[in-house]
C-alpha cells in the first residue's frame, strides 16, 4: 500500500481561529485517487468483492460518493447518520441536524467499506458500527478515511487513509465541501470545545 502523505501543518498561523486551507481541492483529488487504488488492492487481496460502500454524514458521504464512482461499484451508496448513537447526548442534547440513514441494500452478511472524512477520537466510528449492527450482521467492515490525525480515544484504526496530520490538541481539521472539497484547519473555538478532546460538530466529524 502506498504511504499516505504525512505533514504537520504550519503552526505560524495557529493562533488564528479563522479556518485556513490545509489541503486544497487538487491535493484532495490526489488523495482520493490513492485511496481508490488502495481500496481496489484491498478488495482483491481480501476477496471481499462485491463490497458495499457506506458514507457517514456529511463529509464522509462526499468522500464516499467520489470513491464509489472511482471504484465503479454497481450497488448504490449507503449513508449513515450517527446522531442517535452518539455518546454525548446526555451532555449536549439533540444534534440539530439529523439526516435519515439510507441503506438501500441490506448489510446482512455483506462485506462493507465504511467511509468518513476525518478520524480523530474514533467515537464517530464506534457509533457508526453500532448503527450498522442494528441494521444487520455484516460479514466484515473496513474503514477508509480521507484524513487521519492524532487524538484517538478508542482502539479504532483505519484500513485505508488518504492524508495524515499531526496537530496540537487545540487544533482541528475539517472537510469543507462538497464542491470543491478542501480540508481546513483552525483552532478549536474555546467556548465550544468538547469534553475529552472531541471534535466539534461540523462538516468534519459529526459529534458521535
Amino acid at each position, binding site marked *: 500500500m502506498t504511504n499516505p502523505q504525512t505533514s504537520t501543518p504550519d503552526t505560524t498561523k495557529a493562533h488564528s481561529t479563522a479556518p485556513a486551507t490545509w489541503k486544497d481541492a487538487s491535493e484532495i483529488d490526489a488523495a482520493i485517487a490513492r485511496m481508490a487504488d488502495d481500496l481496489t488492492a484491498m478488495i482483491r487481496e481480501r476477496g471481499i468483492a462485491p463490497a458495499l460502500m457506506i458514507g457517514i454524514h456529511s463529509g464522509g458521504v462526499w468522500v464516499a460518493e467520489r470513491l464509489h464512482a472511482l471504484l465503479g461499484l454497481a450497488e448504490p451508496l449507503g449513508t449513515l447518520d450517527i446522531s442517535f*448513537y452518539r455518546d454525548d*447526548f446526555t*451532555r449536549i442534547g439533540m444534534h440539530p441536524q439529523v439526516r435519515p440513514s439510507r441503506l438501500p441494500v441490506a448489510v446482512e452478511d455483506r462485506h462493507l467499506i465504511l467511509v468518513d472524512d476525518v478520524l480523530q477520537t474514533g467515537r464517530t466510528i464506534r457509533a457508526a458500527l453500532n448503527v450498522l449492527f*442494528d441494521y444487520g450482521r455484516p460479514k466484515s467492515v473496513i474503514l477508509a478515511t480521507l484524513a487521519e490525525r492524532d487524538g484517538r480515544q478508542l482502539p479504532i484504526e483505519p484500513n485505508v487513509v488518504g492524508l495524515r496530520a499531526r496537530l496540537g490538541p487545540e487544533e482541528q481539521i475539517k472537510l469543507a465541501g462538497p464542491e470543491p472539497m478542501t480540508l481546513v484547519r483552525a483552532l478549536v473555538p474555546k467556548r465550544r470545545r468538547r*469534553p475529552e478532546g472531541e471534535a466539534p460538530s461540523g462538516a468534519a466529524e459529526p459529534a458521535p
Partner: protein
Amino acid sequence: MSATNPQLDGQGNLRHFLTTEGLSRALLIEILDQAEGFLGVAQQAVKKVPLCRGKVVANLFFETSTRTRTTFELAAKRLSADVLNLNIATSATSKGETLLDTLRNLEAMHVDMFVVRHASSGAAHFIAAHANPHVSVINAGDGRHSHPTQGMLDMFTIRRHKGDFANLCVAIVGDILHSRVARSQISALNALGAGEVRVIAPRTLIPAQAESLGVRVYHDLREGVRDADVVIMLRLQRERMSGALLPSAHEYYQLFGLTEERLSTAKPDAIVMHPGPINRGVEMDSQVADGPRSVILEQVSNGIAVRMAVIAMCIGTQNLGSQVAGETDV
C-alpha cells in the same frame, strides 16, 4: 418570550411539551425535522436507538387511551428508555392519594419524564409547575384544551404529503367545541403559516367566537371541503357532551358524515385524516376511511416518530440544563 413560556428553558429549548400554543414556527419545524430522522428507525432490523438508555418515562393516564398510550410507550422503548405504565384509575389515586403525592413517589423512583393524560384542562401544566426541575412533562391530552403530540403528528403527516404549508387549505370537520385535537391543530397550522384553516360543524359544536382562533367557520360540509387539500375528521366526543347538542348520531351522519360523494368537491389529491378512534357511519363512511385518500393509519405510524422526537428533545434539554449549571466540561 422564553422566560415566560413554561415549556422552554432559558435558551429557548423544549423542556416540557404542554401545548402547541405560544411555540415559534422554528421550534415546530425543528420537531418535524427531528421526527423525520426518527422515522427511519422503523426500517432498522433492530427498531431501537440507544439515545435515552437509562432514562425512565412514566405514562400517567388518568383517562383511557389505547393509541396514544401505546405509541408513547413504543416511542420511549424505541429510544431505549424504560417505561412505567400507571393505570391511575385502578391505582393509588383511587385509594385517596393526592396527585402531588403520587408525583413525589414517582420522582423518588427517579422517573425522568411524565406523559400525562387527564380529563381536566390544565392538568399537564399543573404537573409541570409542581414537578422536580429535572423532570419533563409531556401533555398527552388534557380535557378540551390541548393534545400537542397529536397536533404535531398531523402536521408531520400533512407535510410529508403536501410539503410547504403556505398554499394549503385545511378543513377540520366535526366536534370542534370539545376537541383538544382541533385546538392543537389550529394553533400549529397557524404557526406554520397554513394558507387557510376552516372548521366545519353544526352550530352547537363550534365554540363562540371561533373566528378568533384564526379559522373560517362553515356549517355546510360540501361547501366547507370545497378545494381543500386536507380534510381532517374529528371524533364526536360524546363523553364530554352534556345536554342535547345533537339530535342523534344518525342525523349527524346525514349532515356531516364524510362520504366519497361529499368529498368530491375537495381537491382531487386531497388527503383525509382522523385522529382515531373512528366511529364508522357517524363521522365518516368506511369507503372513505379505507379509501385511497385516507392516511389514517399513516398518522399512527408517524405518531411514533413524532413522539420519539419530542421525548428525545425534552430529555436532551434536561441534560443541557445541568451542563450549564455545572460548567465542568471545557
